[in-house]
Every structure is written in C-alpha cells, then in structure tokens.
C-alpha cells in the first residue's frame, strides 16, 4: 500500500521530468498544432505564447500556495506580480545596475513589502482578508497610474534594454526567454512542492483546516501563514520580472483587480489544491485567451445571427461562462475531472483514501 503511493508519486515526478525535457526541446522541434498554436513550435510567435503560458502557470502555482495550500483567498496577488515587474523595470531605468543586481534589489524590496502588507492583512481572515488585499492592490494600482514620471502611468513602463544581456533581446532570442520561463516554472514548482512538504507546509495546511487547534498545540499560525504569504508573493514577483523581460515592458493591467481575478480563474479552472492543476490551468487559460480572441474576430462568427454573434465575439464572455460551468459542474476543475476519469469514480479524496485503507 505504502510503496504503491510512493510509486505513484515517483511516477508523477518522472512524468513531470519528461514534460520539462519535452518542453525544453520545443524550440528546436517543428511541431504544429493548428487551432491551438499560431504556428510551428520553433517560431517566435508560438514560443512567445508558450512562454506566456508557462509564466501564467508559474503565477498560478504561486497563487495555489496561497489559496490552495494555505487557504487564504487573496484578491490582491497581482500586486506582487506588479511589484516584480515594475520594481525591476524602475530599478533598471533609474539606476546603473545590471540585470542580476537589479533583480536582487527588487527581490529585497518585494520581500520587505510582502512582509509588511502580509503582517497587516493577516490580522483578519476570510472575506475580510480578501477585501484588505483587494484594497492594498487597488492602492498599488492608483500609485502606478498617478506617477507617470516613474511608472509611465497608463502608458506602461518600457524595459530599459541598456543593461539587459544581448541574448534576451529581439524576436530571434524569444527562445532564450522561453527557456527562462520554463526554468522559472521548474524553480517555482520545486519551491512550492518543497514548502508544501516541509514542516512549515504541514503546519500551514493544518492551520487552514483548524487554526484554533494549531494554536492549542502551541504553534503560532501567524508565522507560517506569513511565511506562505511572503513566499507566494516573492514567487509572483519573480514571474513579474520574467514577464517584464518577455514583454519588454509592463502595463498597469498587471496591478488591476481583474488580473488577480484572472489568476483566481486559472487556479479554479485547473483545480483548487492541485499543483499540476494550477500548471495545466495556466497553460489552458493562456491558450484559450489567445485563441478565443482569434475566434472572436473570425469570419465564422461574423456571419452568425446577432443573438449568437454578439456573445461569441466577446472572448471574456466565453471565458466567464466557461468558468461558471466549471465551478458548477466540474468541482475540482481539470485536475478533479481527470482524477475522476482515472479512477472511474466520483469519489472524493477522503473517501478514496478510506477505500484504499479497506483494501
């Protein structure tokens, strides 16, 4: 029994490793998936899209740590993504630092900010926590838009390429950025998995389930929750930094509440509480988002009668509807659906564990 679970876990790591190797090889392969990817896998446009997908997967993973593992429903996670993107962009622009030191400086700022804002918002829980994080993110959004001389305001911030290594610049080097995004995903995954399996991770899971009980044991839940908050924020900021490099800039959309909601949508789509669900969610979402925009402008839609044409030509309408359907009919998201398909049952994890125990 025990070896069986271990085996299956090992299988997952092997599958994951194979996925990474395959993903790493994509830029030198010529694979076309019409309708899903805009072109063959070696073309910059496709690599750019895939890199974005990987970044969203990483971002979703960081949110998974916050929401899925630690049970903190935050509506302000985008703030840390934005802190990474804007922070790095501003440091590169305002100082003479090269990429790596600038990255370090930004990280330090993010850690300080996450620690401070985390300590404040963690004083409340539940919906109130969601609202405070939303309010802080909103304040960030206001600050970004009000200070165009530093942040570019609504026009966004351009990447100052002066101190960026040559191999990250230009369309031909998109593959390098793609590899960077892939490496980041691997790093984020390892950190998240590491944290979840560490003692602190167990403590935070326990806190999610029963905070009072944790305290009666003599543990300070605040500490582990803050730790999870800071780690998730730092990971999000790393994603923001790579996003800045990939896009050669950033816009205030990164600070918006809509953006946090997008991350939430991704995690729910993939399956709350599942690491690889978050990854699949991130990838599926990005591809869907891109393809739905293409679909909206397509001839096929333009010829439909108005009742169908108007909703179908709005990508966000389709996405929102899909999201509602997933929440209503597919609890556990994609990961949950796959699990059920795999086991052929509708059993919940707990029930399944009981079955296994009985065997």
């Amino acid at each position: 029994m025990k070896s069986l679970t271990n085996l299956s876990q090992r299988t997952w790591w092997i599958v994951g490793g194979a996925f990474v190797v395959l993903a790493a090889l994509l830029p030198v392969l010529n694979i076309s998936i019409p309708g899903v990817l805009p072109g063959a896998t070696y073309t910059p446009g496709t690599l750019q899209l895939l890199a974005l997908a990987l970044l969203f997967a990483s971002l979703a993973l960081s949110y998974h740590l916050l929401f899925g593992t630690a049970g903190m429903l935050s509506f302000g996670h985008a703030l840390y993504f934005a802190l990474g993107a804007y922070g790095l962009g501003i440091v590169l622009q305002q100082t003479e630092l090269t990429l790596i030191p600038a990255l370090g400086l930004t990280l330090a700022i993010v850690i300080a900010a996450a620690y401070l804002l985390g300590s404040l918002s963690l004083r409340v829980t539940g919906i109130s926590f969601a609202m405070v994080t939303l309010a802080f993110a909103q304040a960030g959004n206001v600050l970004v838009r009000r200070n165009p001389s530093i942040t570019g305001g609504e026009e966004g911030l351009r990447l100052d390429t002066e101190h960026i290594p040559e191999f990250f610049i230009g369309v031909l080097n998109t593959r390098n950025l793609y590899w960077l995004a892939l490496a980041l995903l691997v790093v984020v995954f390892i950190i998240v998995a590491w944290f979840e399996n560490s003692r602190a991770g167990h403590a935070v899971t326990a806190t999610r389930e029963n905070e009072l009980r944790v305290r009666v044991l003599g543990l300070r839940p605040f500490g582990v929750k803050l730790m999870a908050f800071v780690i998730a924020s730092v990971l999000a900021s790393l994603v923001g930094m790579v996003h800045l490099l990939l896009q050669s800039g950033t816009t205030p959309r990164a600070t918006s509440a809509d953006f946090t909601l997008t991350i939430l949508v991704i995690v729910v789509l993939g399956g709350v509480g599942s690491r690889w669900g978050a990854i699949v969610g991130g990838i599926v979402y990005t591809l869907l988002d891109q393809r739905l925009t293409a679909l909206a402008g397509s001839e096929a839609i333009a010829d439909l009668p108005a009742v169908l044409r108007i909703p179908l030509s709005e990508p966000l309408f389709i996405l929102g509807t899909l999201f509602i359907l997933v929440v209503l009919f597919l609890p556990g998201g994609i990961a949950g659906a796959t699990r059920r398909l795999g086991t052929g049952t509708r059993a919940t994890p707990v029930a399944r564990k009981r079955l296994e125990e009985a065997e």
Partner: protein
Amino acid sequence: GCAPSVDTGSGGDELAPVDISMITSQTGPLAAYGEAYLAGFDAGLDYATDGTGTVDGRELNIEITDDAGDADKAVTAAKDVIGQGKKVIVGTVSSGIALALAEQAEQNEVLYISGPAAADAVTGVNGYTFRSGRQSFQDVATAGTFIGDPEGKSVLVFAQDTAFGQGNVAAATAVLGGQGGDVTSLLVPEDATEFTPFAQQVVDAQPDLVFVAWAGATSGAMWEALSQQGVFDSVPVATGLGDISTYGAYGPASDKISFLNHYFGEATDNEANQAMVSYLEAEGKQADLFSPDGFVAAQMVVHAVREGGDDVDAMIAALEGWTFDSVKGSITVRAEDHAMIQPMFQVKLVADGDSWAPELVTAVDADAVTPPIAE
C-alpha cells in the same frame, strides 16, 4: 523533425505580395476607436493605391490581429509576425501598446507606424517608429492659440492625474510657459466620480484660460460640474473635441467652449478628404476623429513600400522628411524624430436639432503648433 532556421525574409521576387501586419483593438475597451481607425485605413489604402490594393503590381497583404487592448496580446502578435519575417507593423490605439510595439520594432529592426495613440513619448522613441496621428503637444499648442499672445496671461490646465493628463501639463508649460505665460495645473484623480469640488477650485483660481485635458467616460459629469459651478460664466475654457460619440458629453455648455480639434468630417475640403468621406459613407460609416490616423497610416505604408520595397532602411529613408497631402491638408514627417507636422483646427459646437455638430472656426497652421524636436 528539426526546426528550420527562422525565415529572415525573402527579398528577390518582386511580384510577391507585401505582408503588412495590422495590430489594433477590435474588442475590449478601445474597440470603438480601433474600428474607426481601421475604417480610415481601408479608405486610405483605397485612395493611395487608386482602388487596386497593389503597389507596383504587388499585392498589399494586410493581416489584422486583435490586441483586445492588452499589451501581452499585442507583443505576442508582434513577435509572431516578426518571426514570420514581416517587415511592417501598423496600428494600435492605446499609447501603452504603441510604446510596447515601438520597443519590438527597435529590437527587431522592422518598420512600425503607430495608430491614434497620442502620447508624445511615441515621437522620437526610436528610429524605426513612426506615428500617423497628431500628438498631445499639438493639441496643447492649438489650445494656446485661443489666448493670442500668452505673455503675462495665466493658464490653468485642468486634467486627469494620468500620464495623458500630466503630459498635457508638461506640454502646456513648454508651449505657453516658454512664451511668457503662467501655467498652473489642477490634476484630478482618474477614478474620481465627484467633480464639484474641483470645479469650485477652478472658479477660485480665476485664470485667463482653462485648458481641459480629459478623456474617457467621466467627461460628461466633469463638464456638468464645471457648468454648475459657473466656470463658463467667469473663465474662457478650451479643450480638445473628441470623437462623434462624445459630442453629447459637453452638455448645455457646449457652445461656450472653445474646441481645438484634430479632425472632424468637414474640417477640410480637399481631394483626399472627399475621397475618405465618400469611401466611408459608401461603407455606411462616418468620418470621425481617428479616421485620418488610419488614412494617413495607409498612405505612409503605400509610400514606404513603393519607395523602399522590402528594405526597412529604405522604407524609413523614404518616409523621413516626406511631405504629402492628406485629409487634414499637407503633412510632413519630420526627419529628426518622426513627428507629424500637420495643421490643427479651432472648432465650435453648434446645436443641430437635439444634438450638437462641429463647425470650423479656423484652421491652425502646422508651423504654429510644431512640437520641439524630441531628444
């Protein structure tokens, strides 16, 4: 199989079609602007190629991608088309996206002609980026023409606290301050919903001219507040006239405002404008604020391809310093920073039944509103 190396453009065959990538908003918050711009572009293409859609026998193959107002999508699309070897990118209505595309153009050495995005920052941003419309500076300079000689006059810029608003303040300080005017500003948070207190501050300030730089849905409420607090009774007010859908925003005070204008359907009477207006009418559309930006962009594309073929540097050389007739009159692409030197208009709104219609007061000479050379 293994990846072929990325195609770096064909060259050679002269009769191969020319690929032009148009990236702009078709959905999302700026969809309406995108639509007007695209319509103008079609009209311009028709005009510049005499209805053939070809240049020297080569078909202009325009591929449109929707950026949905999202920089991520625009950059992905740009990388995609650049990766496919396309050399010309046109479009977008959002300044943020235009700057992102400009960055891609520079990194990858392709020609980029931005759309209606008015940010001054696009001018002179790099050697590969051109614009097809006017920039904020030209708006402000036109506003300045309402007070004659600015020497010793006080001007209050009433604007949103955004890059757009702050850009207008900076431009006003440069234009009018440089001529001895005293420029102050009153910046309003972009998401403010209550403008009465700010209107009160305008009245208290009693400047010789209020220049209002405002965009977006809140303009209606803002104008109403100015009107209610009696700003129009005590101070002359100037602002930029928006697109047709905003004519209703100024409310009862419409005829008390001095408008500067980039373009409206009857602004000029020349061959190009007649061509555009009738082309759009045939399509069931109306010439609007952003139509000329599309029209001019099409003219620039055709000119660049005609003179430069597939060579980006040659295309740039052809555009720099080019003077041509367009819907607004004569336009020059300034060689140094690619600013578009063009005439502007003073306009007033007159009641037209239930609604308002613009009427030309005077055309402002291009030289009078020329921005300083960037960088």
